[in-house]
Each structure stands twice: as structure tokens, then as C-alpha cells.
């Protein structure tokens, strides 16, 4: 018996610098803590949330809406954790970082 579930939601890039290298790295590290397959994207383009190279191809600037989907035994927890990271603006809501 497996308890795989499939979930999806929409998040918004909140930090002023957008989804640049460091937030992408944070997102990959977080996604890798879950067994579920996690996809992220906009429009018809969806990429692997566990690959930094793929995440950077999104070029997601501040204000961009992205859809996230997860499939697997821990899909629920994965989506929740990722939403929290986006809500927190990748902990760089002040524009003077980096």
C-alpha cells in the first residue's frame, strides 16, 4: 500500500531580486528533503524543482506567479514547506543583500 498523493498550488516570487542563484539553491536543497517528484513552472513550461540549472531557466523575477506540483508520499509536506519558503521571500526581503 502506498499513500501517494498529487497536489498543486500557486506561489508568487516575493523577494525583490527574484529567483536568482541563491534562492534557487535554497529551493533545491529544500525540495531534496522530500521523496516526492516536485515540478515548478509557469505557463506550459514546468521543470524539475530539484535541479538548480532548471530553476534558473525560469528567469522568475519578483511578482512572477509560479505553479508547483508534487507527487508522492510526502507531497503535502513538500508543498507546504515550499510555499513557506516563497512566503518568506527566501529570507531576503531587504533589497540590500548580496
Amino acid at each position, binding site marked *: 500500500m502506498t499513500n501517494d498523493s498529487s497536489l498543486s498550488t500557486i506561489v508568487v516570487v516575493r523577494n*525583490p*531580486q*527574484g*529567483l*536568482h*542563484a*541563491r534562492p*534557487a*539553491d535554497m529551493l*533545491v536543497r529544500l525540495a531534496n528533503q522530500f521523496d516526492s517528484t516536485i515540478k515548478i513552472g509557469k505557463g506550459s513550461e514546468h521543470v524539475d524543482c530539484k*535541479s*538548480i*540549472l*532548471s530553476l*534558473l*531557466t*525560469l*528567469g*522568475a*523575477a*519578483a511578482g512572477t506567479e509560479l505553479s508547483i506540483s508534487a507527487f508522492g508520499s510526502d507531497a503535502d509536506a513538500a508543498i507546504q514547506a515550499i510555499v513557506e519558503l516563497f512566503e518568506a521571500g527566501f529570507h531576503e526581503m531587504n533589497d540590500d543583500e*548580496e
Partner: protein
Amino acid sequence: MKFADFINTKAIRADLKAVTKEEVIQELVESLLESGQIEADQKDDIIAAIMKREELGSTGIGRGVAVPHTKHPSVQKLVGTVGVSSEGVDFDSLDGERVQLFFLLISPPERPGDHLRALENISRQLRDENFCRFLKQSKTPADISQLLQEADDNQFVSG
């Protein structure tokens, strides 16, 4: 955004001498100075800023690729260069692999969008294995320059 919009052809380095992370960054920033993209009195500050960014987490994003970068108020527009190391350099990459391809970027602080679009272009092109492999095999700046041009002409990937 295309490579031609932010990579200065004269600053491209095909045969990096550097064997450490700091040397790579110095060599590539030096190339931007020699090609007139940055001011001489800003060089050390730019190198320090890029190293400081690396301390927050390596920009070695995997597949033998790194994108060392910083924002810096001394540049008026996004400037960048490409360096290739035949031996590869230990860059504390996220996947632990040595890095052979370097895309160094310096952007004005008030233009985060340009930086994102440059990263988008670099990562899209590098998803193509041929482009990645040909770049790593490049022996001269002219070879690299031609590959970037071909990528700009969509000969590797669409979009």
C-alpha cells in the same frame, strides 16, 4: 537576452591558468579590466565582492559550470565574460564536481532583472549537452565566441 548582450568578446579566456577559486575570479575580472569593461581602481573591490558572494554559497551550479557574480555600483550595465579551464577547478560546487566553464557577471545594483535574464539564458543554453561539451573543448577565445554566437542564433536550443 542573448550572450552578445552581456558577454564581452575581448574578455573571453579559453585557457585559464587559475587553479583555485580566487585565482579564477581574479583572472576573469582582470580580463574585464583589460577589455575596458571595468575601471582599474574598482578591480580589487569587485574581486572582494564576488568572493564575498561565494562565501554565502558556491555559484558552482553543477555540470561543471559556475556563475560567479556580484552587483557593483561602478558598472552602468551588465558586463560579463566567459572562461574555460581545461583541467577544471575545485569551486565547492553544489554537486561536488570540478568546474570547467565560468560565466562571470557584474551587474548594476538597481537592475536585478537583467541579472536574472542573463542567468536564464546561460542555464537554458547549458541544458544542451552539445553546447556544454563543445564549450569545454574550446581551445581559443574565437572558438568560444563562435559557440556563443551560434547559441544566440538558436542553433542549440529553441527559446
